[in-house]
């Protein structure tokens, strides 16, 4: 299978970041990673990916702001999957309201996330 779609993973937990990177690299996606909001913003503006998987609670710039950048400042707008420990209804609704395309609550199934990614990138 060959796939060269680029994905940005923004996650401050290094272990989750590494496992996700490993999982998605196996499916031949081109992966860039950011451990905080600032790094992510830089990548979004300089080298925009096709999809961003982001946590909401991040150092320097939070996930909410990143979603807004991905949707308003990037052309074409970047698809966003939010990966958050919060499963509260208001948090999920707020994420969708500001433009998130999907919401995955932690704990999550890596296989399920992979399927969701595939669905977005195949559109």
């Amino acid at each position, binding site marked *: 299978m060959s796939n060269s779609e680029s994905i940005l993973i923004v996650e401050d*937990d*290094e*272990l*989750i970041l*590494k*496992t996700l*990177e*490993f*999982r998605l690299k*196996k499916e031949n996606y081109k992966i860039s990673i950011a451990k905080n909001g600032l790094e992510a913003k830089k990548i979004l503006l300089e080298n925009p990916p096709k999809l961003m998987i982001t946590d909401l609670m991040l150092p320097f710039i939070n996930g909410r702001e990143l979603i807004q950048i991905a949707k308003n400042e990037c052309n074409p707008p970047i698809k966003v999957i939010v990966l958050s420990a919060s499963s509260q209804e208001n948090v999920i609704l707020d994420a969708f309201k500001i433009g998130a395309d999907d919401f995955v609550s*932690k*704990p*999550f*199934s*890596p*296989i*399920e996330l992979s399927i969701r990614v595939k669905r977005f990138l195949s559109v």
Partner: protein
Amino acid sequence: MNVFTLHISILIWGLIQSVSGQNVADKKFHIVGKNENFFRISLKYNFKQTALLTFNPQIKHPESIEVGDTVWLSKREHNPIKTTSKQVTKSEVLAEPKDIQPSKAVINTFDTPSQHDLDIPLFNHPDPITNWVLKLDAFFVLITGITIIIIFVSRITKNRVAVRKKRLIEHYEEIISSFLFSDENVQDSHYLQRFTQKSVAKTGFQKTILAHLLSKIHDNFLGDSQLLIERMYHEHELEKMALKNLHSIRWSNRAKAANISGKMNVKEAIPTLKVLVSDRNRQVRIQAIIALIRLRNDKPLSFLSGIRFELTDWEQVQILKALERYNTNEIHLEASHFETELATVLGLVIRIAIQFNKTESSSTILSFLRHANTTVRMRVLSACKSLTYIESVDILKTYFDEAAIHEKIQIIDVISVLITEDDGFFLNIFENEELDESLRLAAAKGLANVSNGYAHMELINKEEMSIQSKLSKHVLDWRL
């Protein structure tokens, strides 16, 4: 580093000072030199002249001491030494004053102290306070120096451990990621063996880090990945460490061990966890309870029988959350047959029962109200208040006739919180003149809380009752 150098300098200076101070303190006598008089000698050795004179009864006229005379610096109780000044000629001393060596002079030229004299303790010092200050000075400087050295060494060690830890974490992260999402058949028994071989964890340090990482990633994943992490944990026999830590003196170790035992499905931990539900530390207790719920113990609520303390609201919420998340099956059945005299636990059991099955809970509550002691009954009634389930009202009304007067007041209070409109329950109590005044007063308060209570105000005003004015005031206070 500059601070460190400064401290070392202070240390060395202090040691020199203390050593030199000791020499002065040790000196037993002084040979009068050129340009010295009795006053100067007393200053030099920090004595009062009168004190120095008491050590030298042979000196009758201190102003007339001569070069070469001996001045004793400590009291001599036996064999007072005769002055030897006459044995050294003035010219001899004047000729080479710098060459005079006090010790040699005593031994070779003067009448030397007898062996008995030499046995006198050296520290028979006239000023013990100065002596102690010097000793303390040296001691504190020494302690400061040692402390600084310890801090310095521990900082270096800490940095080294941090570097080692970071490398180890990176190493384990790589291995865990690669083994979690490998293409190989994870059911193959050799697969986990290869994981164990690659992620060597033999020392306690390595095992702690690996266990922490596996636990962290376990929190984030679901499904097969989670099961695989549990298998990785057991393959490394990390559960042995958790079982050992359940008995640790430190509460944080016990809490962590309880947490990971529940997470990683360590069934062997169940007996110890049942003991830990009564631990003196709140965190340990709650982690043990959650672990027991996660381990799907034979009966999910059986751990409650081990509790010997009052559960706080926070603990009750944690238990409910854990039950909701990890185990909800058939809990109401268990709750209805639960036996304990601990009021808070009973309240919790009722909450659990109601949360999972309302019908079953009605009989549970009635059962508790009819069979438990007074304290428990009052707790059960309070618990009903916090439930805000309208079904509780019927149960409470059913029990009302059987209840004692103080319970009836409590029931009226609970019902007034649960309902918005009175169906005549409060009004009937209020209008019944045969009833106790306090009960009618409670009913009046209840009426004040409900939306149609105001309509009964006129009735209150029309009635000619001893408590009329009191009731009206209460009702009005409430309404306003």
